């Protein structure tokens, strides 16, 4: 119930009401465990002075419109995967840490990278008039599932693979046909042979969608993406400027809480889910030969090196990423990307 009259002194207890959008669907772990928890945390930390009302995928507008809608203030805040706005600047294809050939492991390395690369992404957003608050929640590495055995780099040639985003570029590069099936069609697509293989998400989420029922092979490692950020937080700059400093801080604190909790929840739950997949007698895990993995990583990094020519920001991003790899001890990989000590 709204109060009809302002009874509290001006400027002292103003309540800010924000609308928040995301690409995740209400009812799923990736929504309930992060978006709702975030809104709750912000309300608690701010003593009810910042109220965030969340909206699930496509409820207010199509997800890939979130960028423009945050920009023009239709909503104040969004937690969305950056890959939805690669059309605005190629750097956003990589912005969530969705990097083909990525050798890094686990959430600690991932969030280290996110924070190191944040200034570049900040600037890319700023150019479009959007305030970036950085990585929100953790997404473990994805998997490649298949109906047919893929045992070497040659086996990718001529396969129909459901893939989206950078992954579709990557699998095309390996000679496969990347097919755009929407998420709900993946199950039947694999079942009926519309596609032979598919990337979608990690073991946990794929399992929730029942994809294990139509999987015969898991191809490891899946080089199209490593650990990444499921969503990044972006804010309308006017809304941001209006906030008192303590509420700005509250948003960062709540963000970090979600980072931590999602890292535990998804990192560990995904491990448990993987165990179940491995114990499934109908699923064979195929380990690609070491030399093929090497070749595939080179192909991936070639794709990545190409990004250097796509925009100023993506050039900076790849270069800075190479430094991060070196920091983390992946010196060989860093050098392929042009890192020099």
């Amino acid at each position, binding site marked *: 119930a709204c109060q009809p009259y302002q009874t509290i002194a001006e400027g002292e207890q103003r309540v800010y009401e924000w609308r928040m959008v995301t690409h995740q669907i209400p009812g799923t772990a990736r929504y309930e465990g992060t978006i709702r928890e975030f809104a709750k945390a912000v309300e608690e930390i701010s003593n009810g002075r910042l109220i965030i009302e969340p909206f699930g995928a496509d409820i207010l507008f199509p997800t890939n419109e979130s960028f423009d809608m945050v920009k023009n203030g239709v909503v104040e805040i969004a937690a969305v995967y950056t890959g939805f706005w690669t*059309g*605005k600047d190629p750097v956003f294809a990589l912005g969530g840490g969705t990097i083909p050939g990525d050798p890094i492991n686990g959430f600690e390395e991932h969030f280290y990278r996110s924070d190191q690369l944040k200034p570049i992404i900040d600037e890319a957003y700023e150019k479009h008039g959007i305030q970036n608050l950085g990585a929100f929640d953790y997404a473990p590495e994805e998997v490649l599932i298949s109906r047919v055995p893929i045992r070497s780099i040659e086996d990718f040639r001529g396969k129909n693979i459901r893939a989206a985003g950078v992954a*579709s*570029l990557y699998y095309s*590069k390996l000679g496969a046909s990347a097919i755009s099936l929407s998420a709900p069609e993946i199950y039947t697509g694999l079942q009926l042979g519309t596609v032979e293989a598919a990337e979608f998400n990690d073991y946990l989420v794929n399992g929730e969608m029942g994809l294990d029922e139509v999987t015969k092979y898991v191809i490891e490692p899946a080089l199209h993406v490593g650990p990444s950020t499921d969503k990044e937080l972006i804010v309308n700059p006017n809304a941001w400027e209006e906030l008192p400093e303590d509420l700005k801080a509250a948003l960062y604190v709540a963000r970090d809480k979600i980072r931590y909790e999602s890292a535990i929840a998804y990192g560990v739950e995904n491990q448990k889910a993987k165990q179940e997949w491995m114990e499934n007698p109908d699923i064979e895990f195929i380990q690609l030969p070491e030399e093929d993995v090497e070749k595939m990583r080179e192909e991936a990094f070639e794709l990545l090196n190409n990004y250097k020519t796509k925009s100023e920001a993506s050039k900076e991003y790849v270069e800075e990423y190479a430094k991060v790899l070196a920091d983390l001890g992946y010196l060989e990989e860093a050098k392929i990307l042009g890192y020099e000590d």
Partner: protein
Amino acid sequence: MKPIIKGIDSLSSIAGKISGYLIIPLTLVMIYTIIMRRIFSNSPDWGFEVSIFIFGISILLAGADVLRLKGHVAVDIIYAHLSERWGRIMYTFSLLIIIVVCSFLLFKGMEVAVESTRILEHSSHQSSFNPQIWWFKWFIPIGGLLLWLQAWAEIYKVWREGEQE
């Protein structure tokens, strides 16, 4: 006034024709994609986005001609109970509503298209095709403008030609 109305009518009609015949390339693109995928395992990377372009353009271009042909479904039970004069007034009100909606579509759509053109926006579907899509966004204000014009033409017809539902 007459030639202007005729002009608007034929503009809508041409847009409607383009919209209609686009279904032929749409069908062919989809069939080609299926064949290339099933038989040659080599589906074109442009199949997905080209189909989307054709469909989107077709919907946006069709709106005005559908209005000209009185094809936008309405629940017109009220007209049976109205005098001819009130029928005209109601139909005019209907068209004014369309004009208001299309004004927003025109101006807001233009803003969106201009911004998209400024950054030479590319597709966000991220296929390896990765086409520019700023030109596709222009069909939003274009579709709005065509409908806006046609609605005015219809108002003219209601009062000057005695044409009425």
